[in-house]
């Protein structure tokens, strides 16, 4: 028989990567969505047209269901011709090297020469503290102790539903080096609104440059955080040393090691 298609373990062409079902470059993707139209053959056809509208070819309606009240749900398989040049993909990564708890404590005592003050808070109306607790509290998560356990860090966990104003207020009170903001609820992009507001307030107060400000949460990526004006963003699976190491290195890199009171005092 003639040999066609892939032969041997040929690696794909990484400059034009396509989705893969069972044949290299078949472009197979699965979709599901609901259309606000009553169920029936026309709805099914509309689902097909929707897939075609998305530039997909050979759409196949695997499943359709009547959701009632004029809504229809579809599961569709189709092919895409879109390619991604994988050799050009660049992902911004949190700068600095990853350090262990002991290394961080040593680093701070040697390079900063004083305890760093870190404030954590779950801001806005968000009350999901499990994530920020995992970073801040002694107990930590996954066997990795939180910032409260660091010798060279004075960690304050302000808890949940902290308004941005209250956070800034606390920054003055504790004379903080860094703010660690957690945002879990993301519906209607409320996290973006919230995070943006904090940066604006900090800038208005002239504090932005004097503080390391980082954000975290399950749907916060480093890139998004940078976009919103943060120094870094930390997603799911973050452990205390990830943040502590970053903050410590930032403080040094940005020359924030010595400075007076935030209120009025000039940084550096």
């Amino acid at each position, binding site marked *: 028989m003639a040999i066609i298609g892939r032969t041997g373990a040929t690696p794909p062409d990484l400059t034009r990567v396509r989705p893969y079902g069972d044949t290299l470059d078949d472009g197979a993707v699965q979709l*599901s*969505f*609901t259309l606000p139209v009553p169920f029936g053959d026309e709805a099914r056809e509309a689902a097909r047209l929707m897939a075609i509208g998305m530039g997909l070819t050979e759409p196949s309606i695997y499943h359709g*269901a009547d*959701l*009632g*009240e004029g*809504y229809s*749900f579809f599961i569709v398989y189709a092919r895409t011709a879109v390619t991604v040049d994988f050799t050009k993909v660049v992902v911004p990564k949190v700068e600095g090297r990853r350090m262990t708890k002991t290394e961080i404590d040593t680093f701070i005592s040697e390079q900063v020469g004083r305890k760093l003050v870190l404030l954590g808070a779950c801001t*806005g*109306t*968000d*009350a999901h*503290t*499990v994530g920020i607790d995992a970073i801040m509290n002694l107990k930590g998560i996954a066997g990795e102790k939180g910032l409260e356990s660091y010798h060279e860090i004075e960690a304050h966990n302000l*808890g*949940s*539903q902290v308004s941005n104003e209250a956070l800034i207020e606390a920054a003055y009170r504790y004379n903080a080096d860094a703010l660690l903001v957690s945002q879990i*609820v*993301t*519906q*209607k992009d*409320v996290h973006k609104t919230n995070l943006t507001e904090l940066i604006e307030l900090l800038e208005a107060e002239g504090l932005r440059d004097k503080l390391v400000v980082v954000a975290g949460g*399950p*749907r916060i990526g480093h890139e998004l955080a940078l976009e919103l004006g943060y120094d870094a963003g930390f997603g799911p699976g973050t452990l205390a040393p990830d943040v502590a190491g970053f903050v410590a290195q930032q403080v040094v890199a940005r020359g924030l090691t010595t400075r007076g009171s935030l209120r009025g005092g000039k940084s550096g």
Partner: protein
Amino acid sequence: MGAASKLFLDESKVARARASASNIADSLTGFVRARTTVAVERTLLRLLGVDGIEDQGIPLPNVVVDQVARAGRLERGVMLPFCSAMAALGLAPQEVAEAAARGELDLGTWEIHNEAEARALGERIGADAVARVGRTAAERRERMARLSPPNETMLYVIVATGNIFEDAAQGKAAAVQGADVIAVIRSTGQSLLDFVPYGETTEGFGGTYATQANFRVMRTALDEVGERINRYVLLTNYCSGLCMPEIAAMGALERLDMMLNDALYGILFRDINPERTLIDQYFSRMINAHAGVIINTGEDNYLTTDDAIEATHTVLASQLINEQLAFRSGLQPWQLGLGHAFEMDPAARDGFLMELAQAQLVREVFPDHKLKYMPPTRYMTGNIFKGYVQDAMFNLVTAWTKQGIQLLGMHTEAMHTPHMHDRHMAIESARYILNNASSIGDEVEFKRDGLVVRRAHETVEQTIGLLEEVESMGLFEALAAGRFADVKRRRDGGRGRAGVVVRAADYFNPIEAGLRAALQLDANEASHGNHR
């Protein structure tokens, strides 16, 4: 339980745990009954028919109560000056409130010249209010009798779009798909508001504001679809947070059928002041009791912050306390949707058996109760396919142990509030499993000395230990010591404490009295020691 116990439970141990819980509840009664709160007083006004907002958007019940509270005169209750003004001015409740809002009347400085007359009027309109609450229960009963009743295991789904009109559309579709109960999730933050927002709302985060108008939109929608599908569709909202009793009143007026109603939840998860919310709860539950509302408690949430494998017994202990507190407010066992959850790490070896043990245990300890069984949330991930299977295993436990209120898991739980079809898929899967494994609980037995039985027995022991500890240290102290949900809450901490007021000897609250009478609470109080 007992002879029929599939877990070979020792009845006397369960009785011991329950006695402890009863003592804990009793130890609170004196404290609670001696106090009122701004929310309780606002509730009275709402039950009298006061509604609406003034031009700054402040709800009229707040306007009135704030006047009285600011004047430091809330210790006798808002109804005394309010009814006095009504009588003196010949105004209806709403008119008095509006006059106050326009600044034409200050109930803080209002002189009560006509106390006897005011009290008599108060008794009268209070009795009407109590009757109105009772009529809601009657109307529900009547509709349920006419339409077919909900499924034995009620399928409960949430809507949480932020827009009440979307919620209505989604709720109706869910009902058509087979849901028995539609719960509208509240926007983040509402529970900390010391007022209830007003009107129909179309914005919210992670949920939709609980307003009376929104209740009405949903009720109308679900009644409409219920007629169409010939099944009564239950409506749920949140009766907790700083406006707990007000929402109970709104729910009674708009015929909500179920309410998440749990002070412990507010304390632990919203940092609401423990005293405030326990007082609020006492009254809110009387309203729910009389309105025939099923309450859901929030113990399931403990397992979102604490480890479900380690902390199972905290759930059971809290359920027993909550049961006794509910009885003190006149709720019946069938009205108790005590919360628990399927929240163990799916990577745990034999975790499924431990979940079974827990669910069966709760079922047996509370045989006549509704039980609200919550799906996996904590260990749900963005892997929606795996999540769909986790939810299926949860549904299987329900088929096996016959929980009353099955809060359907959403495979997208870790990521977004449910999309239209997420709910559809959840219902489809639950129906498949509840039918396909329908008799499993009757056909299969736990090995007498096996893992399931041992686990249940251990949990009972730990529960007794914890309850006896709470009994001896006191509930407020136990909360402060972090005994529940791995969270510490001080008695004097949290939000809303300023709203607590010690009642004067001549405190006037004919509605409460009416409810107590309707619920036969005073008769019952003596016998609480041996409740159930």
